[in-house]
């Protein structure tokens, strides 16, 4: 099981260590540093590193490496999932997860870590339960604590911990009872030079924010549940009812949670809402190249595409670019060779366009690789897969809750090859 945890910042300092079994010397991280050196970028550090006596499993998030040390055969996914959970918890507690924030809250961090694992076994990882055990720091609470001498540590056993619904605490009370659901879909796609789709898939989630009094029992039904053939549920969802009736039936956790994530695979036709026209040409031993991109709407079901940004990693041979956008702003970093163009909203009548020249290294032959264009965008009020919620019902409580459903489509890893 998980022996120890080291937090390492991008400059290679270990700024926190926690041991759940015996103390493992921090020199074990030297193997990690070696691997870090070998990998050119932080993202490329392999997640599993063997050392003579231990294994180091790491995740890289918020520019921090979370390195777990294990000694025996442990499912690596278990460790990696847990590490991600640690990061999520920190984020949940402190709003952001960064080195200064962790250092500022080191005692709470330590207490939380202690609650999350016992002897390497996960103990409490549900944010609801953790927050009852260790209350998140707020300014008000800090002030109160200093005056009254009370603490952040709850002295009662969390009620949810052992109940049949461990994710929900009892005795929840709200004056406004609300339940909001966000259906968010991300399109991952690779579009080739000629504009045809090589692969496209949709990663969808339904995030919920439920603030309801008591023990509400909710059911959520869809207009077209057949779309959901590959789903992962929050533990609260009753799987049997889904299997038989295609209805989501659950007692929700209190607050924010991810009810469901789903995947619409490459085999179903995925509508691509934008097109990118590009004309990028390098010529052999010429110091100038031409560059032009146009972004326009394609299958948007009548909705507006907003928040469009275009980024592209240009080849090393590009020294500078002089471009004019028809709208928005653009930057080119001559050091990292990163071009980014903040487009904003797309007006279907006047597709935005970025045009100009590139100055290339004189005399060098044309670059081997073609830049890939990365696209970000958002479409409000649309789930591109066509998924629609039919209705939401509540049982078990008397009051009438306020219900809301929101749809959104975003670009995930949306790449256009040139």
């Amino acid at each position: 099981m998980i022996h120890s945890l080291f937090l390492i910042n991008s400059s290679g300092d270990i700024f926190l260590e926690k041991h759940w079994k015996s103390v493992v010397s921090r020199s074990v991280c030297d193997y990690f540093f070696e691997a870090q050196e070998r990998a050119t970028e932080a993202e490329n550090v392999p997640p599993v590193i063997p050392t003579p006596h231990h294994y180091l499993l790491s995740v890289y998030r918020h520019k921090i490496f979370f390195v777990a040390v294990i000694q025996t055969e442990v499912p690596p996914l278990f460790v990696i999932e847990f590490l991600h959970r640690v990061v999520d918890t920190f984020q949940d507690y402190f709003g952001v997860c960064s080195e200064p924030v962790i250092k500022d809250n080191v005692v709470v961090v330590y207490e939380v870590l202690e609650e999350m694992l016992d002897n390497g076994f996960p103990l409490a990882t549900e944010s609801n339960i953790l927050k009852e055990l260790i209350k998140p720091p707020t300014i008000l609470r800090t002030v109160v604590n200093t005056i009254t001498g009370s603490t952040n540590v709850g002295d009662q056993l969390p009620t949810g911990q052992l109940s049949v619904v461990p994710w929900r605490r009892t005795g929840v009370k709200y004056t406004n009872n609300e339940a909001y659901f966000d259906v968010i879909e991300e399109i991952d796609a690779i579009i080739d030079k000629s504009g045809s789709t090589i692969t496209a898939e949709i990663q969808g989630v339904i995030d919920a924010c439920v603030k309801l009094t008591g023990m509400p029992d909710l059911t959520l039904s869809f207009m077209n549940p057949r779309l959901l053939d590959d789903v992962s549920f929050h533990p609260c969802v009753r799987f049997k009812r889904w299997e038989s009736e295609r209805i989501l039936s659950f007692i929700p956790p209190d607050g924010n949670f991810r009810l469901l994530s789903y995947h619409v695979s490459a085999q179903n036709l995925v509508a691509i809402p934008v097109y990118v026209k590009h004309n990028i040409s390098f010529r052999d031993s010429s110091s100038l190249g031409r560059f032009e991109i146009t972004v326009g709407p394609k299958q948007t079901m009548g909705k507006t595409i907003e928040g469009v940004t275009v980024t592209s990693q240009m080849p090393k041979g590009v020294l500078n670019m002089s471009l004019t956008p028809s709208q928005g702003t653009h930057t080119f970093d001559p050091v990292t060779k990163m071009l980014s163009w903040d487009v904003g909203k797309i007006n279907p009548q006047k597709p935005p366009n970025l045009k100009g020249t590139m100055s290339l290294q004189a005399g060098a032959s044309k670059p081997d690789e073609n830049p890939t264009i990365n696209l970000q965008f958002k479409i409000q009020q649309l789930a591109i897969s066509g998924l629609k919620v039919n209705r939401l019902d509540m049982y078990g409580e008397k009051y009438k809750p306020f219900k809301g459903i929101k749809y959104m489509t975003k670009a995930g890893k949306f790449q256009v090859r040139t």
Partner: protein
Amino acid sequence: MTDSKYFTTTKKGEIFELKAELNSDKKEKKKEAVKKVIASMTVGKDVSALFPDVVNCMQTDNLELKKLVYLYLMNYAKSQPDMAIMAVNTFVKDCEDPNPLIRALAVRTMGCIRVDKITEYLCEPLRKCLKDEDPYVRKTAAVCVAKLHDINAQLVEDQGFLDTLKDLISDSNPMVVANAVAALSEIAESHPSSNLLDLNPQSINKLLTALNECTEWGQIFILDCLANYTPKDDREAQSICERVTPRLSHANSAVVLSAVKVLMKFMEMLSKDLDYYGTLLKKLAPPLVTLLSAEPELQYVALRNINLIVQKRPEILKHEMKVFFVKYNDPIYVKLEKLDIMIRLASQANIAQVLAELKEYATEVDVDFVRKAVRAIGRCAIKVEQSAERCVSTLLDLIQTKVNYVVQEAIVVIKDIFRKYPNKYESVIATLCENLDSLDEPEARAAMIWIVGEYAERIDNADELLESFLEGFHDESTQVQLQLLTGIVKLFLKKPTETQELVQQVLSLATQDSDNPDLRDRGYIYWRLLSTDPVAAKEVVLAEKPLISEETDLIEPTLLDELICYIGTLASVYHKPPSAFVEGGRGVVHKSLPPRTASSESAESPETAPAGAPPGEQPDVIPAQGDLLGDLLNLDLGPPVSGPPLTTSSVQMGAVDLLGGGLDSLIGGTNFVAPPTAAVPASLGAPIGSGLSDLFDLTSGVGTLSGSYVAPKAVWLPAMKAKGLEISGTFTRQVGSISMDLQLTNKALQVMTDFAIQFNRNSFGLAPAAPLQVHAPLSPNQTVEISLPLSTVGSVMKMEPLNNLQVAVKNNIDVFYFSTLYPLHILFVEDGKMDRQMFLATWKDIPNENEAQFQIRDCPLNAEAASSKLQSSNIFTVAKRNVEGQDMLYQSLKLTNGIWVLAELRIQPGNPSCTVRAPAPTLRPWSLPFVPCQGVVLVEDAVQASLQAWLEPESVRSLKRTFLESFHIHPVRLPR
């Protein structure tokens, strides 16, 4: 006001200041001080000097302070064991606290304090907590048992905690069940033999119920535990699968992968005709695809596992090729894995898409990735025959880009394509030759030389091309040198007239000016071949080469099956069985897929049946590189891996051996101008060697007078069948103990480690009494002698023939199986002398039809000698008499399993043969059916062996005599 203030220190005497604060009267100040101490601890600062002061703060009502002190204790108790005792009282008191949170906290912390002295005090509170009314306390206590076991295993067993823990599996609370399973699994891992998790249909049912209700982490433990269970038939397997399938929709990827493991394993038991089998296959694909949309670290582990799954059951993901397409900003470790799986999934249906993608990747920035992509194109060509032409033209396109590393990589794979499809794509050679000058990597140069040599007859200027390489011969790497040597010899055999000079030149370069023994040896072989028999040379050098197989990097099927059982673990990430890398190899149990058993058939499954897929399914893998024959001829393009030599290689092997071993040492000192003229015939080497070793074996057999006859070591496992490991051995019995004397020889080219041995059940329950101890890794060509003590307390199963022993030997490379026959006399016990009266009574009771009679020919022993000789093999003379000039010996012996065998031995002086009449053993009931005549035959062999141990050739006998005389023991004078 943040915690960062705890890090700020005044310059002098930080510890001193903290000490003062810790001893302050003010509660608030105390707490702040403890927080400072904890803060120092988190950054690895040593604050152990404050131990007594911190422990003093322990007795408090403030829960936060208590927790902080506990945190501190866990870290430093080990360095201050005496001080830690001070804390015990508080712990014991807290274990009685009315608040379950505090009870749990106390028992939990106590378990973390790894100090022997504390463990004694821990037992009572722990026992109470295990039976606590509050499930939260019980589940914490369950984990505590695992902690305690880690510190003091004996104590845990003595106190009966393991049984309590087993009871907790039936607890009403699913969280408690999950933690109990987790704790038991961890304990079982360190004690593989303990059989703690006794899985039966009832307990499985309990686990499956708990599975639905416990937390995600608990589900992982339970699923991993379920995976170790072998259902009794396909119906049970199916019902478990049905209950596990919902886990595939879990948000936690570790749960999903553990569920996949259970399903993949149990699926093995389901019949393929079953509807359910097809449904299950369909259900497995989506969750695997979903894993790929997770964070990159999770993707990596998932991909490594998918790689295994795709090899085992390609049908699951055959339509999902597109999800493995690489995004340009994937981390490199994800890219490389995706590429690997793309090739495995490539088929005629999707090859066009795959090739288009691969071509795209070949223009990316990352060099490693580009290289692998180019290589992948070659692998596609070899795998999907219809696509070969397309692949070749894609590769040619890439060569036109003139990007140096792309060109080199392309040439290396084109060479492989030539080996798969000879005489098909030679038209491209011209294009390849254009790029000759840009090749600077040894592998690419060697590949190019191979191509030129192989197709020398079609390349007009082949001699010029090869000559150009020859100029810098000594600066080339070995693989290029070897290739150049072979290439030029090929060229010579094809165009003898114009290349004589060239071949002379390369032979002398290789044999005279090189320090590399491989190169020299190969040079000499060619030289000799060419000078003695050019026709034979042609046959050898230009022999038709075996085609390379479709996929050379497939995991070997038995290993694959084992790895499937380890899905989701580190083993699956490394594609090695845990025994190959888990520290110390402790606690490693080989897992194998369950055999397919229909419910109608009897549910008995052989316990140690060799794991593996049915033989029919094994793909025919010809190692592309590294087989000795191929290596010798011209395929030496990469570092040779150990592989079984081809069957035709016996002659070649001899030659290699002879030249490699014998000549090399001869040549070592002197400089030969020409190769030696008279080579020793290859066949002579071996007999001399083995004769000598025989001799020594025999002498050692005689030297141990108290022991019985020892047969010379025989080869049990030839190197060819065991990837280079040769095992020969024999059995001995000495002073009441049986042992198996093994000689392990490493004939492979890589170091062997991690040896282990196991026997199948056998007629006499022979089993290793100790693990196979090979202390140092076995390096190539090294031999090690091991005596493995055997016991006869293993499980018993009748074998055919009776003395058959099936053995499995494992090393870091693989598991190998062989069977051998052990001589029965090793089972004759020392107290096998039967009482005279009893002998007489029994002898009479044996019915005549149970008797067997046989003659031992050429046995020039007198009665005395025979008797003493037999006695040394624990065949005892009960009585002796002389009837009509014949000596009658009445013999008895007893087997380890308590069976008596009686025999009458008749010896006629002067007649060099004696007759043995032996009634079949019927005295004791066998625990198993025993075929009488077979037993007698074995006894016959044993007697014969014991007697004939005297009958070696004259030379050995004389040696033996001197040996005995030196010990003042006079050998029995032979009657002749």
